């Protein structure tokens, strides 16, 4: 391919990604380091504000919790699905992927109807007389975690299942015939062999949760903000441009940083595998 054809072909995408994303991004973020000469004071200010710090730590904590829960639920479920026959497996996987393709508002709305003050859970407990007053389930950290797990579980399960299917039945047969119990096989064979998939999925879940806007806003309310809702509040409601830019950069650093970190980890794991062979 001639150079001029190459330029012509990548041109539109380059214009789009360069002019509409890279330049705006740099134009927004670079000024946060100059006040007016180079300094980190905007970031120091951000982290010395206890309101902002609470939101930052909440975002980290809830994203980590969400990731852990999706791992704990996702591993056995994916194992179960990976052991089905191909037809059943495909059906189960499409069923699990279905919510992923529906709108986040729909999914958030479902959990509002379940957890809300007049929601299904409270209606149920009140009618049984177990509680006298509705429980406060919605607009809590708990609701955010449930909603986020619901949002990202399909990502975890589909990634893990495809890795586990690749392990192959011979490996399992070998393990069983050598006297390993099913649970021991699960912990000693399945989990280590699906570790790379586990890392990839964890990154997707973690960075997805920490940058999500809709779910934490619908289920957490104004009292339990996460970084994305804070960014929207600071920029749109308060027109506080400098703080918004700081939050934007922090969000990029956190989600990309986690990605890099896990990539390094995954690289180590892979290399360890090669050495073993």
């Amino acid at each position, binding site marked *: 391919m001639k150079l001029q*054809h*190459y330029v012509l*072909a*990548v041109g*539109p*995408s*380059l214009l*789009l*990604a*360069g002019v*509409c*994303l*890279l330049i*705006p*991004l740099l*134009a927004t973020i670079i000024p946060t380091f100059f006040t007016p000469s180079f300094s980190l004071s905007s970031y120091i200010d951000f982290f010395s504000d206890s309101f902002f710090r609470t939101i930052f730590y909440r975002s980290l904590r809830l994203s980590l919790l969400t990731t852990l829960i999706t791992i704990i*639920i996702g591993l*056995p*479920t994916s*194992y*179960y699905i990976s*052991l089905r026959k191909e037809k059943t497996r495909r059906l*189960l996987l*499409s*069923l*699990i992927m*279905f*919510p992923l*393709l*529906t*709108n*986040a*508002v*729909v999914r958030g*709305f*479902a*959990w509002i*109807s*379940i957890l809300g003050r*007049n929601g299904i859970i409270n209606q*149920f407990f009140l009618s049984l007389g177990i509680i006298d007053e509705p429980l406060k389930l919605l607009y809590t950290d708990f609701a955010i975690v449930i909603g986020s797990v619901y949002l990202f*579980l399909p990502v975890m*399960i589909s990634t893990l299942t495809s890795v586990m299917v690749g392990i192959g039945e011979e490996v*399992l047969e070998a393990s*069983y015939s050598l006297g390993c119990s*099913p*649970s021991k096989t*699960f912990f000693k064979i399945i989990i280590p062999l699906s570790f790379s998939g586990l890392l990839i999925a964890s990154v997707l879940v973690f*960075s997805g949760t920490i*940058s999500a*806007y*809709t779910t934490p806003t619908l289920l957490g309310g104004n009292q339990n903000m996460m970084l*994305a809702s804070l*960014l*929207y509040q600071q*920029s*749109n409601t308060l027109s506080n*441009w400098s703080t918004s830019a700081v939050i*934007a950069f922090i969000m*990029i650093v956190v989600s990309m940083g986690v990605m890099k970190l896990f990539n390094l980890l995954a690289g180590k794991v892979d290399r360890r595998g090669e050495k073993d062979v």
Partner: protein
Amino acid sequence: MYKHRFVTLIAILTLLFIFLPLVLIIVTSFNSANTISLPLQGFSLQWFTKVFKSRALVQSFKNSFLLAFTASLVGIVIGLVASLALVKRPGRLSKALLSLFLSPSLIPGIVIGYVLFLFLVVKVQLPLRTALILGHLLVVLPYCVRIITASLKELDESLEEAARTLGCPPVKAFVVIVLPNLKPAMTSAFMLSFINSFNNIPVSMYLKGPGMNTLPYAMMNHIEYNYDPTVSALSVMLMGMTLLFMVLLDRSMTRGQAKGVKGE
């Protein structure tokens, strides 16, 4: 099949966890009660008619549909030519460009919306409508480029070469040989782009102007002020749309696989 009672139990609970909320929405959308509640009171289609009576929802559905369609179509075209260039001329530059084109999927959506608003709307003073389309193009670009480059790399180059040696001009070889083989990939790319653009909130939130609200955001507004099954009914219709997309996607993928087998 090995028996893992514990694993089976967790898997069933997980499937219930994933499906019960959706089932709840479907069931209550046909319920005559004014709130989302169980037990059911009676069958009614009033919430569905209410969706069509709400101008805000109908108009924003049209907006979102048109926006997602435009963005996906343009995204496929620019993604296709870029992918061709990247795959045909591998090297450092192409690698760097590929990560640039994929980067919108790594940056939090809300950050994209915010910087676009700040730069394109406030600084450059582009009309909101243009900025909204550009923002959605950014949302779909990574899906188009990732899927089409992957498919191009798998495509047997000797096919095109054979056509060329047999005297087929390059453009015709591309249209007759390469393009049909890319059809499944382009269909998947289009569907995924459409779904992601249609469901996007963070980018639209910053770039929607008066009279051009998108559906997800209109739904969010609706939930804030009303708590009735209208949103359930709308959700059911959207689920139907998603289901249709999934079936189409699955068909195009299996047809693609079948073609691959025949090609060997």
